[in-house]
């Protein structure tokens, strides 16, 4: 590349008479040898192994070779500034976890800022805590007091760039910056790009499976944030590496050499990541007339209440979810609401809903669960089953009923201490039977010794669903995994399952693929749960509702297609690039 002028070189020769050494009278013979060896050791690279790995609990995190390699290269060969660009699903978060753990061990991480898309922030926090024992505060935590009050922070990038926090974020000198989904800073004219550009940090790790989103200049922008000057000026990059139709790279070898200094990209085919088959069985049941009546009454109530006061969205959303889970889950919330209620009209409506709860003799899902559990026990050797529900009240009811039928039942919820949680999982592994769990287990605790999972109710956030499945369907699972979804017909569950989750093939997606789809959706300013709720309460008729959900499914499908296309495009661009570690 000859498009720039070379800077000057100044060579200074230190005098040989400096090589005098200190005045040592009659030095022992071996001391010259020691001087030679010391000089050579001073010039050598320190033994740069990842020492903190010995501290990790193998039950919490299973590290794969490509992940350890990536962490090693990022830290020791790239001087702590790296773009981790593995293909989707290879565990980039784990790589960053290892890096942060090692930096923590070496005490080079006095302040760490992790910027993620909003919906992934809590997941990052849970993974770093459970797998690496690293405690971070998240900007969604109640105890978050701003960016100058904590040293280990996970925050949504949009919160960090908001007027409220921006100055505080920029005022600090961060030791480490981690940027998840780094392709969202590809555009140099955005506030996000400006924020990263202005941040001060010593080490930085950017993550993306698709460094190139629209055009090859994206790669220039992302890499230049990490290593300014690596590609020279924008114009030179364009002229030298991109052909005139803007679609392909030229001078690939030179580009590869430069990228190798900052980017690590593992491809699935080069790793030993292998998952067993996942079989999904969705079972829909007709609710009893009493259940149907209750569902209708609650839906009408939620709709009416929301139209009057949108400020109560969260509690109304909760009611709508609880009514399809169990009468117990629902009753507590509705009674609390009744106690808080001052308006007579609503009081009457709530009272009549309570009457409807009392009319329910049999809970349909409860009976059908027994069928599933029995089937599993008959057909699968060591047929341990995990039943997931979102609500504690439902959990209690399900566990009691199963126990009364003579099953060995274990219960798991967020109220247990860490020690208790470990013991519950251990006894589930030893004794077998059924584990009835809330979503408290869906982060961190692994149970790959079990291969049957029942979704008693379904979270409206697809990431949660995948997290549940991820507890048993993960590296180390040797058997086929069975996922049973339970849903009541003609309820929101059926819509979410049929119209949304099945359309995007949710139950076959990996966490990486899902986060890509959802982050893209979030990019357009929408939250998945809100989308579902708004559609539910705003539809004027059954037909409207179906159409609305279909439209949402089309949106999702589009995002999924886009994510797939991008992944393919990036694979194409980097095809033939040997971007892995060299053996020599």
């Amino acid at each position: 590349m000859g498009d720039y002028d070379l800077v000057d070189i100044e060579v200074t020769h230190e005098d040989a008479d400096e090589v005098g050494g200190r005045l040592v009278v009659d030095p022992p013979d071996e001391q010259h040898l020691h001087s030679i060896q010391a000089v050579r050791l001073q010039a050598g690279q320190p033994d740069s192994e990842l020492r903190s790995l010995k501290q990790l609990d193998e039950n919490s995190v299973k590290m794969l070779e490509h992940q350890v390699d990536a962490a090693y290269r990022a830290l020791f060969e790239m001087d702590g500034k790296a773009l981790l660009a593995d293909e989707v699903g290879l565990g980039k978060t784990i790589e960053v976890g290892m890096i942060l753990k090692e930096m923590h061990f070496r005490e080079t991480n006095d302040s760490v800022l992790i910027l993620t898309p909003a919906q992934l922030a809590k997941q990052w926090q849970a993974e770093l805590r459970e797998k690496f024992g690293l405690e971070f505060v998240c900007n969604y935590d109640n105890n978050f007091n701003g960016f100058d009050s904590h040293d280990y922070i996970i925050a949504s990038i949009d919160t960090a760039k908001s007027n409220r926090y921006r100055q505080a974020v920029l005022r600090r000198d961060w030791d480490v910056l981690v940027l998840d989904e780094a392709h969202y800073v590809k555009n140099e004219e955005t506030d996000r790009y400006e924020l990263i550009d202005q941040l001060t940090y010593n080490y930085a790790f950017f993550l993306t499976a698709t460094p190139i989103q629209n055009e090859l200049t994206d790669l220039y922008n992302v890499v230049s944030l990490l290593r300014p000057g690596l590609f020279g000026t924008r114009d030179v990059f364009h002229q030298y590496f991109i052909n005139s139709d803007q679609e392909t790279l030229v001078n690939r070898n030179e580009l590869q050499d430069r990228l190798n200094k900052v980017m690590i990209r593992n491809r699935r085919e080069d790793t030993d990541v292998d998952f067993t088959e996942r079989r999904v069985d969705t079972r829909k049941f007709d609710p009893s007339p009493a259940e149907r009546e209750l569902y209708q009454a609650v839906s009408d109530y939620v709709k009416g209440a929301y139209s009057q006061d949108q400020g109560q969205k969260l509690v109304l959303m909760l009611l709508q979810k609880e009514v399809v889970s169990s009468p117990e889950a629902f009753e507590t919330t509705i009674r609390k609401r009744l106690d808080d209620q001052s308006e007579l009209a609503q009081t009457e409506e709530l009272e009549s809903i309570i009457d409807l709860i009392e009319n329910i003799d049999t809970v349909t899902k409860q009976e059908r669960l027994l069928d599933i559990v029995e089937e599993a026990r008959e057909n699968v050797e060591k047929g341990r089953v995990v039943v997931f529900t979102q609500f504690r009240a439902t959990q209690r009811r399900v566990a009691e009923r199963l126990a009364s039928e003579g099953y060995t039942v274990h219960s798991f919820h967020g109220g247990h201490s860490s020690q208790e949680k470990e013991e519950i999982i251990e006894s589930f592994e030893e004794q077998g039977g059924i584990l009835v769990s809330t979503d408290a287990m869906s982060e961190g605790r692994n149970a790959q010794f079990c291969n049957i999972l029942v979704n008693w109710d379904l979270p409206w956030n697809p990431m949660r669903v995948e997290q549940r499945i991820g507890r048993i369907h993960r590296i180390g699972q040797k058997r086929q995994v069975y996922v049973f979804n339970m849903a009541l017909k003609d309820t929101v569950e059926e819509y979410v399952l049929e119209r949304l989750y099945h359309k995007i093939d949710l139950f076959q997606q990996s966490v990486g693929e899902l986060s890509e789809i959802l982050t893209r959706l979030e990019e357009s300013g929408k939250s998945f749960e809100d989308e579902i709720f708004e559609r539910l309460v705003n539809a004027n008729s059954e037909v409207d509702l179906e159409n609305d959900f279909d439209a949402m499914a089309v949106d999702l499908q589009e995002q999924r297609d886009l994510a797939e296309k991008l992944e393919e495009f990036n694979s194409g661009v980097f095809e033939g690039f040997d971007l892995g570690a060299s053996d020599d």
Partner: protein
Amino acid sequence: MTDAAVPVTQSTVESFTARYLRSLGCQIDIRDNEWQVTIPEDVETDLPKGQHNLLCDTVKDPDETHDILNPESSFFQSVLDDASDRVPLGSIKVSTTDTDILVPDWLQESPVSVSDINFTPYYDRSALVILFQVSVETVSEYQQEFLRSIGIDTRSNEILPNLDETFLTLTQSEAATVTSDDFTVEPEQAERLVDVSREPLLSDMQPQIDEIHQEASRAADAELEEYRQLQRQREEEFETKITRLRSKIGELNESIENRNQTERVEALKERRECKSKLEEVETELKALRHHREQGYPDQQHEIRERHGLEVVVTPVTVTEVEYERGDAEFELTDGNSTASLTLGYGSGVGVTEEVDCDTCNQPLSRENQLRSLTNGIQCGSCGSQ
């Protein structure tokens, strides 16, 4: 010239520290991973005297009463600092008994094999092996340090490419016979030989320096481009400001016509301020444009100078190497024919004379291997015909 740096593993750290401290006269009591080191008051060293409790390769944070001993620990760095400049001059003897006979480059990938070698030493020669530290610094990259060895014959000033490698291999061993006070080369001669070595050293390192040089130049260029864009942005801001001021002046011109006395005075005053501001901005814009047309020479100079490379070459140890010179007899066979070649040879240095192809008279080399003995010594080009 050879890269003389060695990887710093935990076991090297422990073994070197123990040997060095003991050579100083320190006491070391080792119990598993815990060392108790006593550095007596009368030992001449910069290391802190007294008792030290060291934890080796620890995965725990030590308490205040312990130091860590691992590749990055400050205790180990102090040991290296203390040892490295303690006795930088010394000598070593390389004899055939210490080293294997070195087969010349042109035989290494040759179909001709060596059936026997005999070396007869005639006389001793001396050379210097110098370890040079080369540091390359620029603002855009971390400082990079290299350690290179080079061997040079004291009489002929000839660079001896294999000798420094032999030296590095020998001195890696704990049992190497090195002496610390037997340096017989005169200081002026040693200094001259060090100076003679600098040029071949730097030319050997040129590829590494070039790479850093290119990177620094690209970084300078990127910074300059950023500066250009910033200036262009400032020009645009000034242009907008000028347009605004001109239109304001236009508006004031009109209003001066139509207003009463007091308002007119106010408007005149405002117009005067605007005109003066306009003049100021126009001057600044003119200056900016002028700088742009000139290509921002001052800024270019400042940025390029700041990104300039600073290469510092420092000799850190000089060892006199006594080696033997004589003849080596190589018994060769290519399957059909045999031959015996007697060549000048030095212990640890290898063959010291060139061998030419009997057919084309081209010298044999790594690239031009000995191919056949059937019609005399034949190189790769001639022996295959």
